[in-house]
């Protein structure tokens, strides 16, 4: 009762930060529930784990198989659903990452455990697990409970929701499953990774980013913002829809699927503030947001806010700079 299972992600032979965040939250919850914390690592060779990693779980299940050198959905889902069935954890946690978005819903169907995704907080009501998640791109919050969690539940956690604890002081019993034989044939096969991020300019080195979102409206008007950036001595960056529409090349994109930036000042023009975007500006010194919508979620993470049409603001800024 009260046991927690965490699926640990790694990529290119390195542990992913999101998994440390989740295991830190799991540690807190497991303590409250007086349950055991189990971390599951599927890898070709699990030698990339930091030496103190085992202190973060009571039990570390390591399954080593060539197929786990990269994410093999079929094999991963098979192994994890088997572990869930054997151990009946109270709560299963993983990241709301592209891999977790594949694994979470699939495990929910396979194990019959209810699922809550993209959670930004997890609370306990006695032993019952509840989650907090966002709707409408962050304009609304919802508290979600599971109708029937008597057999457990699954949660995918939004990256960046929880800090990484220094250490957890658990005993870290290592369980190696050497030969995960009888794994079914994979329905998909990893071929290669491609880096799409490199380009002519490097937005990660800029001191001032003038960043545009869908609010810029049309490609033709981006020139006006380029002029502004030129006058300010800044570099133009953008949110995802601007790249999706082919208005700017991908290397301008800020966010989880773009770049993490750390300018002294980040000027966001017509960006709503979805988490996938603001995750990329956590390292920015000062964020100034300009948006027509006074309820835009970006104003919750910005340091300064301006409710104004971005072009009216941009024109005024140019005029002041020209003086």
């Amino acid at each position, binding site marked *: 009762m009260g046991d927690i299972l965490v699926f640990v992600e790694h*990529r290119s032979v390195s542990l992913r930060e999101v998994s440390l965040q989740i295991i830190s939250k799991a540690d807190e919850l497991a303590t409250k529930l007086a349950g055991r914390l189990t971390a599951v690592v599927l890898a070709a060779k699990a030698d990339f784990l930091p030496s103190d990693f085992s202190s973060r779980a009571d039990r570390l299940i390591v399954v080593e198989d060539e197929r786990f050198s*990269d*994410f093999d*959905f*079929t094999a991963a889902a098979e192994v994890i659903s088997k572990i869930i069935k054997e151990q009946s954890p109270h709560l299963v946690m993983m990241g709301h990452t*592209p891999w977790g978005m*594949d694994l979470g*819903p*699939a495990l929910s*169907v396979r194990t019959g455990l*209810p*699922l809550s995704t*993209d959670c930004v907080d997890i609370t306990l009501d006695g032993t019952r697990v*509840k989650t907090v*998640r966002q*709707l*409408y*791109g962050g*304009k*609304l*919050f*919802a508290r*979600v*409970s*599971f*109708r029937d969690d008597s057999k457990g539940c699954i949660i995918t956690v939004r990256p960046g929701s929880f800090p990484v604890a220094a250490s957890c002081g658990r005993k870290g019993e290592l369980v190696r499953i050497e030969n995960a034989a009888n794994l079914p044939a994979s*329905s*998909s096969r990893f*071929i*290669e*990774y*491609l880096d*799409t991020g490199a380009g002519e300019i490097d937005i990660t080195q800029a001191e*001032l980013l003038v960043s545009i979102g869908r609010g810029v409206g049309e490609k033709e008007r981006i020139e006006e913002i380029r002029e502004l950036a030129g006058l300010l*001595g*800044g570099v133009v960056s953008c949110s995802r*829809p601007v790249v*999706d529409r*082919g208005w700017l090349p991908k290397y301008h994109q800020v966010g989880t*699927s*773009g770049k993490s930036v750390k300018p*002294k*000042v980040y000027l966001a023009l017509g960006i709503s503030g979805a988490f996938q975007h603001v995750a990329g500006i956590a390292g920015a*010194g000062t964020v*100034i947001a300009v948006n027509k*919508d006074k309820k*835009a979620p970006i*104003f*919750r*993470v910005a*340091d*300064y*806010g*301006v409710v*104004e049409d971005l072009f*009216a*603001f941009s024109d*005024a*800024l140019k005029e*002041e700079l020209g003086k």
Partner: protein
Amino acid sequence: MDIIVCVKRVPFTQEVDLEIDKSGKSIVTDGLAYVINDWDGYAVEEAILLKERIGGNVIAVTVGSEDDEEVLRRALAMGADRAIRIDTCGRSLDGLVVAKAVAAAIKGFPLDLVLTGVQADDDNQAVVGIMLAEIMGLSHAAVVRGIEPEEGSLKVRVELEGGIDEIRQVKLPALLTIQSGINEPRYVSVMGIRKAAKKELKVIGIDELGLSEADLALATEIEEVYLPPETGGAEMLSGDPSKLARAVIEIMRRKGVAV
């Protein structure tokens, strides 16, 4: 290639002050404008592009009320061959129930590929697609931004974090959740939508799909919704544009940017 594409109609909430309804569990939707879920627009376009390239048949499916047929008509105007609306019969649904309903409605259809959006703009859950794939026993991949058909499989480009993509080969039949930016959804005119009204749009009640009450039971429940806390946000600057501009220049200089 026989393709099914799932679409959803969602409220457009920019520049809207969301208001919580009496139940405290959802928002007041009167007066909101509705659009096709952004990600689904890309999924429909991708289905049509595949059909145009290698031939086949595209069926658009939605779960919802009569008003939601608007997005099916849009899909038909974009080039889908026919459409199915699964009526909710007044029930509240969650992601799993929606997935079960779609699976039941398309059971037995010739099928190579199912496309959905990565997530819906309203509840942002990203669950229906992959759940549907698992229920139907299809191979799947989430967050796809490139598809290259091959013999018996697809070479797909899965978007990971930080500008890294993963190229993966996925066996058919498969379900892919489509990421924005994979293509450029075509424009459809009001005229085009009107013309598409001639295409078949079939309605079937969720209660007629042979699902049991247990199948239709909700797994999760929203206990309450609330507006984000007002505190701790940005310091709001006020004044006319030139005053705002001066204030912003002043902040930039203070923060060490040479303006």
